[in-house]
């Protein structure tokens, strides 16, 4: 079973541009690489790629030429626009281009890395659409690939994936990969600067620290996120300004949710958060101004809530079972019934703690009996 699996939530919502050469269907049982590459009329068209492993492969460049190689050094392929027979297309900036289908087939051995990064090589980054299935290999995208709209890998091995392995795909719309991650030491920023993808479910079974995994990406939607063994899970989705929906989040062993969803100004809905072990909620949802509902399974171990719900102006409902530290819901959007639910959820602290529910729509409607629910459990309620 893969340690980590990401799948585009709704790949059908992305429409493959017409005119691109088609990609044959493959499955996880295949060992194959297909990539559509743009060849521009007025630019250099140098495709750089480098492989790792011990192997012998055949590359069909899509222009009637092929290369059979066992080389682990840089391979450069220069295309001639006028020699290609595929249709002339026009990009968003009015430039003419044609497409070629690059096909890579194994002969012997195992490729472990498809390196598309090559920051020191002179080349162009014109990949448009990649579909591959290669159980022994992972990609490396460190250099920006601004035209890549889809990357699908049905099977692979991401055991060596490091920080920034899959970054700088700013316009990627469909991103679907299985990550057989024996993550080396951490899962930090592997996907930074990913484009406006809808990402499906993700499962991380290892105990690595997971920090800033999707920070600063443009992802719009996320499935269920499960990392029940990791003990540190800070800033995973921080600054995801386009993220609107996320499913259930299982962080059962994590003690730190610091800045987990910080500055997700578009985030509307999030599923149940399994939060059994969490002690630190600092800025977890700070400035999530569109967020309407949050459900924690338990907050009994929390010791710090500083700015956790700062400027959550749309927060209508929250479940905080067992919370025993002071918390601030100033300027949230809870009606009386939801405030009462919060009071019922609160634990009983050893010394008085303060809950601020000032300037919520239901604050003025709270009755003496409602407030007594909290004060009888050693809480101070401020209105």
């Amino acid at each position, binding site marked *: 079973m893969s340690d980590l699996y990401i799948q585009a939530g709704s790949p059908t919502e992305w429409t493959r541009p017409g005119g691109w050469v088609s990609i044959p269907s493959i499955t996880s049982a295949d060992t194959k690489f297909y990539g559509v590459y743009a060849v521009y009329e007025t630019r250099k068209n140098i495709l750089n790629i480098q492989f790792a492993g011990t192997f012998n492969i055949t590359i069909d460049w899509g222009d009637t030429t092929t290369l059979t190689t066992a080389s682990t050094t840089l391979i450069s392929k220069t295309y001639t626009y006028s020699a290609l027979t595929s249709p002339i297309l026009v990009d968003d900036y009015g430039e003419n281009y044609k497409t070629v289908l690059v096909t890579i087939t194994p002969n012997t051995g195992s490729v472990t890395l498809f390196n598309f990064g090559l920051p020191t090589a002179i080349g162009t980054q014109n990949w448009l659409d990649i579909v591959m299935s290669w159980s022994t290999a992972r990609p490396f995208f460190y250099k920006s690939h601004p035209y890549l709209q889809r990357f699908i890998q049905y099977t692979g091995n991401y055991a060596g994936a490091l920080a920034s392995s899959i970054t700088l795909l700013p316009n990627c719309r469909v991103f679907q990969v299985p990550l057989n991650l024996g993550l080396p030491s951490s899962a930090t920023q592997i996907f930074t600067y990913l484009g406006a993808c809808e990402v499906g479910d993700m499962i991380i079974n290892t105990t690595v620290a997971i920090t800033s995994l999707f920070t600063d990406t443009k992802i719009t939607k996320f499935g269920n996120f499960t990392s029940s063994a990791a003990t540190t899970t800070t800033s995973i989705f921080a600054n995801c300004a386009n993220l609107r929906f996320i499913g259930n989040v299982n962080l059962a062993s994590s003690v730190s949710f610091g800045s987990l969803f910080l500055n997700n100004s578009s985030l509307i809905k999030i599923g149940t958060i399994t939060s059994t072990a969490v002690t630190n909620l600092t800025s977890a949802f700070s400035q999530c101004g569109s967020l309407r509902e949050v459900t924690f399974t338990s907050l009994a171990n929390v010791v710090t809530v*500083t700015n956790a719900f700062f400027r959550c102006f749309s927060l209508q409902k929250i479940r905080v079972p067992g919370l025993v*530290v*002071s918390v*601030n819901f*100033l300027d949230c959007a809870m009606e009386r019934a939801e405030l009462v639910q919060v009071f019922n959820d609160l634990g009983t602290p050893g010394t*008085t703690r*303060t809950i*601020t529910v*000032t*300037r919520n729509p239901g*604050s003025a409607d709270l009755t003496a009996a409602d*407030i007594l629910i*909290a*004060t*009888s459990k*050693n*809480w*101070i*309620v*401020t*209105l």
Partner: protein
Amino acid sequence: MEDTSGFYRYDEEQWFWAPNAVYAPTYTLLKELKDTYDYPVDGWRWYDEQPY
């Protein structure tokens, strides 16, 4: 200009603010009666403007 008056208390390395009322297990502070209390009340004081 925003009205920042209210009962304020600094505790747990943070400020708490109650513009209208404080309900505690053993006492209640109401804005309407702010001039009748002998401050500080459990650390709470009335301020006409935000004190920090």
